[in-house]
């Protein structure tokens, strides 16, 4: 039954958006995490989304005789670190300053992160709405003939 798939699809969307929200909150929380070396400095993290194809259907489930082309929502392929350059600030009085007097700030753009946060939360809401609608549709089907 395809309505049951809507739950899986919207669920995968919600899960992916929450991962994105997690990454964003981690980025904002660490926006001021300074370090004395480039390697140790926090870098902005971003999840990579990909279209999930329905593999369950291809294994020949009871209801899907043919593999579904529709897909099964979204899948998070992994989390990548931003390769953008870090911000080096000359601050010899900073306790974390290195021998040359530099501290390194993460490559987190807080404005960008806030926009990302709003986008993720809106997409999450959309998926919740889809889930709710599918739920009412399914409940309605159960009352058939009553």
């Amino acid at each position, binding site marked *: 039954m395809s309505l049951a798939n809507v739950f899986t699809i919207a669920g995968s969307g919600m899960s992916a958006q929450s991962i994105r929200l997690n990454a964003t909150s981690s980025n904002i929380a660490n926006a001021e995490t300074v370090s004395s070396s480039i390697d140790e400095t926090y870098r902005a993290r971003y999840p990579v989304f990909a279209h999930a194809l329905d593999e369950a259907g291809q294994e020949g489930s009871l209801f899907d005789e043919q593999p579904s082309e529709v897909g099964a929502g979204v899948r998070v392929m992994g989390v990548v670190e931003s390769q953008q350059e870090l911000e080096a600030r000359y601050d010899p009085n900073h306790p974390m300053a290195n021998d040359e007097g530099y501290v390194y700030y993460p490559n987190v753009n807080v404005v960008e992160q806030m926009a990302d946060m709003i986008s993720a939360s809106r997409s999450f809401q959309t998926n919740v709405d889809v889930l709710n609608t599918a739920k009412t*549709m399914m409940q309605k089907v159960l009352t058939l003939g009553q």
Partner: protein
Amino acid sequence: MAISFDKALGIHPAALQFRAQRAEVLANNLANADTPGFKARDIDFASVMKQQLSTQGNESAVALEKTHPGHVSGFIDEVEGGELLYRIATQPSVDGNTVDTQREIAEFTQNKIAFDSSFTFLNAKFKGLSTAIRGQ
């Protein structure tokens, strides 16, 4: 005299199934609203309807000839006969994604309303049948 459910219920069960399937496609579009390179898809109601009418006992329908009782009928899936098409993007996006969330929500809502009306028709058919059985 047996009641033929197929004849009594008409196109409505298939319409309901189509709406459920379309809900899946649209939900998939919405879930992938932030996936780079994802292309929004949809099923065309008219083509599915056309196919339904041709498979439902019309003389003009193209049917497979069965030369052996073991042959399986209905190779074409009832609802999936409608092709899964790509939506034409209204605005270009940098990452190649063609999902317009607002449009998809509108389509999804419309699809839900259509589902509800098909359901109402189907329910009315069942009520009519049970009234006929009771003879009231």
